């Protein structure tokens, strides 16, 4: 057995201790064990630096932990941290080390990499803890060691600090048990690996609070509390030397949930969001750890890369405030793209790579926000800069009362940069924020995102592929580049929670509104050459008994579409361009579990019998589902010079500039201010009698998956060659997509086999919605539009709709 592996095993299974000191008489009196050796340790440790290096001359570099201190949390450099250890060796069961740690602090003054060492770091880290650890090392089932450990820590604090501000995980408890075999195995090519066979691992973690303070979190200034229980069985970690380039570390891993035990993650504010009944497994192949050199923007870095991560993760019950939405499952596969263009990697570098940069996204208005965000830090500021690249496919399955909705063949790939650091309150992008409230600053730079789905399958994995995502409000295919500056604070609208401010730009974008696959290609309606500039201030997130509540503060945005295309997404016929501007304040969104209520469809009746008698059918949506309630208060533009407004503009008849390449239409562009515009100007809500504006547009939107009645539209065979007559009802009788028949008068037993459908129920209420005017704007008279309508006013609308969405058969 390689001794270094044994040392690694000890590190993994318990806690390492440093510096042996002599026992005084008092300490010896405290040791009650009589069969082994008792050791008391009082320690103050100070280490200048510890460096890990995989530099082999042609690749690799140094990862340095600087200014490490261990001592008592109240005075880490002046007071000792005390621990006791009882060591016993049993001829049958092996070595026992029973340890008790009194309050101890491990502090790291900085962590840095390669050529960043000495100039900037990932920040400062503090880890406080006290508790116990029982470690047993015996003979393994094979040639290695069997390690059983039980660790219980309390009063644990973790603090990450940068730029004079701190991010604090407060008052944690950590309980772990591990039962694992550690063995050295030959993996060929003259190399051996440490193989850890984990028969069972149990973990329970609680976090009392999360805040932006080095001191204890206070109520109302915290995100809230978290809880996590994780139980694994039959898992394995295989680790050997050598990274992706030269030296380094390579790991292959398999983890499997123990479904006989409780596995959950929960977040609690005034109420709880719980991801309960977690299960599944994940296989990680070729995960490497290296120190990389000279990435073009973030420089030397820690490189985490993987060949493949494949797994199945299921949340059996997603609960909000005690009610369940249903279950979610994700079957995923991260793998390098076939052409090799996109790999799966995460590169981490110290500092803020874009500090002081002048933003150049091509959108001058947005650039002022982004430049301001990075002007508040310097190239010596601490923080984390990262480059991320991914390529992944997945199926996402939502189950509502036993009925499934599958988002089929989700493919996503892309790459981009981001930065993370903690800042003091006066550095906020919003001058109205409290200077004393520190925050997490998240910068996103040139994040290129691509995704697409094949469609939805409702009912089962073999159900006919269909659309319907249009009604759920998401695009089935999109590409965009994201830049963003986001601030995250602790504390919500009421008590604990989370507060956000931010500026986001999606540019070079193409969004599918709807699409259809026609053999080797897709055709549909696409928003091409689009840009979405979005700003939000004082957005809060709280969880209470009503659900997840977002108070949206102030929002303003501009969405521009160069071409609304029919056909191909970049070359299809265009119906012109669009500009949609939004301006809202004090809007809100509430997300809750549970869908729509049961009701009579296609008829009238208070129950199934009465409904059937009236020619309808009873829609049973069950108890699960998702409901989103929102209030949108559209603000009126008071002055024509104000840039914030609600308006919709359609532009056509623009002059095309071929960019000097007549034969190449791909670089063509529209000359600015050459089109004719139809503009619905200054749209706003009010309360019905004057410009008081507190009611807005109130809507409730519920999503269920349920069995519905589907009638045949025409007599004859349908697209799947199943015969039937107009008005016959579709009944499932076998595995889809062709396992169904049309029945003139289905029996109750057949009605139980009606097809499963996506069911969307909504209610929209408007006291008053106005548009100041509808204008026609000629390019030669931009400042003097011709008014088509001098006012539009919608009052007292209360619209309820229920739509069931099934494939065209």
């Amino acid at each position, binding site marked *: 057995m390689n001794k270094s592996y044994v040392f690694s095993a000890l590190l993994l299974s318990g806690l390492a201790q440093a510096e042996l000191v002599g026992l005084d008489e008092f300490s010896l009196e405290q040791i009650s064990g009589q069969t082994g050796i008792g050791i008391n340790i009082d320690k103050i440790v100070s280490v200048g630096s510890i460096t890990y290096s995989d530099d082999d001359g042609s690749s690799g570099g140094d990862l340095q932990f600087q200014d490490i201190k261990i001592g008592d949390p109240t005075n880490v450099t002046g007071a000792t941290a005390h621990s006791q250890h009882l060591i016993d060796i049993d001829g049958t069961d092996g070595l026992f080390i029973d340890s008790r740690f009194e309050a101890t602090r491990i502090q790291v003054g900085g962590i840095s990499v390669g050529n960043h060492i000495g100039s900037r770091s990932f920040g400062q880290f503090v880890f406080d803890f006290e508790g116990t650890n029982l470690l047993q090392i015996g003979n393994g089932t094979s040639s290695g060691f069997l390690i059983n450990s039980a660790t219980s820590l309390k009063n644990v604090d973790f603090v990450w600090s940068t730029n004079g501000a701190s991010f604090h995980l407060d008052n944690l408890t950590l309980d772990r048990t591990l039962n694992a075999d550690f063995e050295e195995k030959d993996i060929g090519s003259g190399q051996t690996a440490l193989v850890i066979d984990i028969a069972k691992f149990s973990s329970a973690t609680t976090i009392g609070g999360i805040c932006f303070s080095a001191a204890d979190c206070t109520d109302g200034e915290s995100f809230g509390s978290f809880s996590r229980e994780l139980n694994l069985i039959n898992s394995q970690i295989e680790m050997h030397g050598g990274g992706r380039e030269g030296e380094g570390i390579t790991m292959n891993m398999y983890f499997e949930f123990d479904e006989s035990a409780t596995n959950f993650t929960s977040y609690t504010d005034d109420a709880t969001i719980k991801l309960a009944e977690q299960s599944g497994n994940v296989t990680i192949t070729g995960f490497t750890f290296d120190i990389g050199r000279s990435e073009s923007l973030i420089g030397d870095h820690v490189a985490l890369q993987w060949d493949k991560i494949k797994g199945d993760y299921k949340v059996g019950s997603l609960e909000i405030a005690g009610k369940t939405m249903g279950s979610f499952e994700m079957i995923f596969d991260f793998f390098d793209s076939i052409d090799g263009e996109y790999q799966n990697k995460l590169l981490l570098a110290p500092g803020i790579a874009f500090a002081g940069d002048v933003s150049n996204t091509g959108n001058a208005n947005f650039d002022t926000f982004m430049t301001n965000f990075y002007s508040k830090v310097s190239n010596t500021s601490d923080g984390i800069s990262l480059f991320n690249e991914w390529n992944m496919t997945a199926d996402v399955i939502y189950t509502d009362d036993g009925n499934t909705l599958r988002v089929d063949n989700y493919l996503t790939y892309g790459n981009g940069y981001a930065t993370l650091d903690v800042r003091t309150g006066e550095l906020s992008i919003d001058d109205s924020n409290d200077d004393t409230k520190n925050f997490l600053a998240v910068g996103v730079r040139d994040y290129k995102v691509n995704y697409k789905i094949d469609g939805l399958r409702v009912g089962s994995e073999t159900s006919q592929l269909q659309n319907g995502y249009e009604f759920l409000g998401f695009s089935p295919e999109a590409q965009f580049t994201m830049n963003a500056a986001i601030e995250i604070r602790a504390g919500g609208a009421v008590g604990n929670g989370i507060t956000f401010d931010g500026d986001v730009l999606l540019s070079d974008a193409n969004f599918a509104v709807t699409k259809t696959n026609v053999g080797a290609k897709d*055709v549909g309606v696409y928003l091409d050459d689009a840009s979405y500039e979005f700003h939000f201030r004082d957005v809060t997130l709280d969880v209470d008994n009503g659900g997840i509540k977002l108070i949206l503060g102030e929002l303003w945005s501009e969405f521009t579409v160069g071409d609304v295309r029919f056909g*191909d997404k970049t070359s299809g016929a265009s119906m*012109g361009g669009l500009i949609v501007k939004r301006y809202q304040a004090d809007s809100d969104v509430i997300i809750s579990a549970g869908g729509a209520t049961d009701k009579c469809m296609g008829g009238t009746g208070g129950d199934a019998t009465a409904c059937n008698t009236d020619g309808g059918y009873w829609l049973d949506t069950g108890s699960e589902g998702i409901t989103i309630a929102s209030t949108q208060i559209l603000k009126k533009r008071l002055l024509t010079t104000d840039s914030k407004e609600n308006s919709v503009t359609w532009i056509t008849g623009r002059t095309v500039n071929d960019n000097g390449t007549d034969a190449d239409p791909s670089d063509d562009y529209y000359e600015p201010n050459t089109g004719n515009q139809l503009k619905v100007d200054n749209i706003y809500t009010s309360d019905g009698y004057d410009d008081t504006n507190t009611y807005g547009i109130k809507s409730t939107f519920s999503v269920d998956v349920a069995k519905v009645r589907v*009638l045949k539209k025409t007599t004859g065979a349908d697209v799947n060659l199943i015969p039937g007559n107009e008005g016959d009802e579709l009944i499932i009788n076998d595995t889809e997509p062709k396992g169904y028949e049309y029945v003139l008068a289905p029996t109750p037993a057949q009605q139980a086999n009606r097809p499963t459908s996506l069911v969307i129920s909504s209610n929209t209420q*408007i*006291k008053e919605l106005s548009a100041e005017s509808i204008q026609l704007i000629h390019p030669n008279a931009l400042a003097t539009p011709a008014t088509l309508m001098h006012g539009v*006013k919608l*009052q007292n609308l209360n619209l309820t709709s229920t739509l069931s969405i099934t494939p*065209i058969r």
Partner: protein
Amino acid sequence: MIFKRLIFVFGLLPVFCYSLEKISDDDLSLVTGQNGVSISGELVFNENGGPLLSTDTGNVDPNDGSIVWGVCDTDGNAVEDRCGARLAVKLNESGGWYALDELKGKVSFEGLTLKSREIINTATDATFGGDVADLTVLEIGLPNKVKFEKFSYSYVTSNEARPTDAGYSQHVRYGVDFNGSVNMQGNILIFPTGNP
């Protein structure tokens, strides 16, 4: 959410061209895509009235002081002066308002289809008489039957936008009260044309 709003906005825009046509078997043979959706459901306008309430401040007729907005009874009639939705537009700066007034009732349907469809002209089958090139259309397949229950509205002209505005008066030009079913056939095709 943005896409839902965009789709909504898109739906508000006037279309360039639309037509009703019955798809022939030959046309169907050219349709290779099998996606799209069939939609069944119902829309209910102001079943019990709208959000403007009889207790609202300012909810009085400027001419006689009576309550204007209120609830509908179980037969869909306004308990106060009105309970339906109202959409008013003003075409001339100095003119009055045209309005769809007291809109309420229920519309249900089964089998409305929505899909993107590629139409390819061939030598033997030229869609639209060969007047257009190959194109992709957004096809809205009409439901066979649309059922109306207590669906009603009035077309009115008024001197002010709101029934609660000072000096408000209106003339009802005609009213519609609709119960029963409408049989439909065919589809609507939406596609771009002209200079974008």
